[in-house]
């Protein structure tokens, strides 16, 4: 069953200087099933962030419909229900933490929902353990690293017990180590808690870790499939100025040079294995 369903969504921003309408989504249809891990790719201006804000009713479609768990996002009476179920994590971890103490920040969401105090305590502890930040619960956020802060932001969403977390480039401002921490956390939440993940990113190596990759370009969906299916179309992606994972790129170029190699390679491990096989091959 589809958890999030977008049907022919169109959306326009008003440009500030000219007051002209600029359409950024041209009739996008996309369905996300419960428990999926979807990576949403696309370069700047492709409409991927706009799309993400449709999923928790931060933005409402001009045309078309978005349903979350069967609820129409236009329906104001279920607005908080939708926002509780679909949490949104933003790019800059500094700008989404409200309180000066980690555990109090994580409690912010459940407090807004009117959850009884004892249960909030329980949820906060569970959420902090889920992102592996329980030991830092009494710290001040500004003393933490970027990756840690982003995990606190994720914990703040988890404490609302969502079905789905949408992350809008959560690793863009982090160093490689912080990126790794956040990606591990996301994968674990998906696998162990069955939380649906929509990860917006422009790091192809992160997209490879998802179960499904959706590529957006210019307000439309370009391709949609497993990472293996999507990254097999190297030419198509290149035409739209999109990258492929480095390993895929390397093997693709070698193949273009006439070297016999397997078709689609995604990870460095696969790449190493393929090259090893090639080099060890008896002449």
């Amino acid at each position, binding site marked *: 069953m589809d958890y999030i369903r977008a049907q022919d969504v169109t959306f326009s921003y008003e440009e500030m200087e000219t007051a002209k309408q600029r359409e950024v989504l041209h009739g996008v249809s996309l369905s996300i099933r419960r428990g999926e891990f979807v990576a949403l790719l696309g370069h700047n201006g492709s409409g991927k962030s706009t799309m993400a804000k449709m999923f928790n009713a931060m933005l409402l479609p001009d045309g078309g419909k978005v349903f979350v768990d069967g609820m129409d996002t236009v329906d104001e009476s279920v607005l908080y229900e939708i926002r509780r179920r679909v949490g949104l994590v933003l790019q800059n971890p500094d700008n989404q933490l*409200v*309180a000066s103490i980690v555990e109090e920040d994580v409690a912010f969401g459940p*407090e*807004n929902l009117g959850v009884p105090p004892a249960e909030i305590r329980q949820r906060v502890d569970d959420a902090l353990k889920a992102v592996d930040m329980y030991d830092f619960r009494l*710290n001040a956020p500004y003393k933490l690293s970027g990756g840690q802060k982003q995990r606190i932001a994720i914990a703040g969403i988890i404490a*609302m017990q969502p079905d789905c977390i949408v992350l809008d480039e959560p690793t863009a401002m982090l160093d490689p180590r912080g990126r790794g921490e956040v990606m591990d956390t996301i994968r674990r939440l998906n696998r162990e808690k069955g939380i649906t993940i929509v990860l917006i990113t422009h790091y192809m190596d992160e997209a490879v870790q998802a179960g499904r990759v959706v590529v957006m370009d210019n307000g439309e969906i370009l391709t949609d499939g497993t990472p293996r299916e999507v990254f097999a179309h190297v030419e198509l992606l290149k035409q739209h100025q999109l990258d492929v994972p480095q390993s895929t790129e390397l093997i693709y170029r070698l193949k273009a040079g006439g070297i016999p190699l397997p078709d689609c390679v995604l990870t460095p491990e696969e790449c190493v294995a393929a090259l090893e096989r090639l080099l060890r091959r008896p002449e």
Partner: protein
Amino acid sequence: MVRDIALGQYFPGKSIIHRLDPRVKIALTFVYIVFIFIASNFQSLGIMVALVFGILLFSGVPLKLYFKSLKAILFVVIFTSVLNLFYGGGTTLVRLFGFMEITTGGVINAVFITIRIVSLILFSSVLTFTTSPTELTDALERLMKPLKVLHVKVHEIAMMMTIALRFVPTLLEETDKIMSAQKARGADMESGGFMQRVKALIPILIPLFVSSFRRAYDLAMAMECRCYHGGEGRTKMKVLHAAPRDAAALAFTGFLCAAVVFCAVWFPPALS
């Protein structure tokens, strides 16, 4: 550099002072401020000083931090006590420039004012060191609740305070960054007269404002994503409820206040 502000920073801990109800702590701070000025002789002042030092030791906060917060107001203390040297009667001790004289009364005045200011700062430092900003704003929200009748937006004020406190270190860090960036571009902030230095601040303030607005926009969105919709129907993780220890603290303070009043009346005033 700009990050070295001790005043108003929370020091997490589990001491009895930490666990007191923040409302009680705020109330006691006010009581302390009032009584430090009621104490008019050394006997009553002695009780107040003993009280603040007792609390310091019980707070479990390193004494170093208290010295730091005192250092911040060192100038004010010296300035007021030096000024006080020249006020007050009694016998003249030293005569300066023919018309200024330091008298015994003045010396007592100066000692008094120094003790008063230092105790005040120490006591309010205990409040801010042992109470998390959220607890503090929570308590203020609860204490101000009666003002709702006058249509004061109590929850909104408390939320604004929470956010302001949360962003102080973030914005300080940002200021540091912008200053370095402008220096790297050749901005000169150290030399020149007063007006020139004020002008040199403009290239720091403008980017700081722009980025603050961007942060505010992001934060508002993040808060909405987390279902924030004002104080209506909101609960709190940490509910404030007074424990026996709060009653004990109030009773103890009440007793000390009575002692202060008694001493102030019984013994002759030290101040002329």
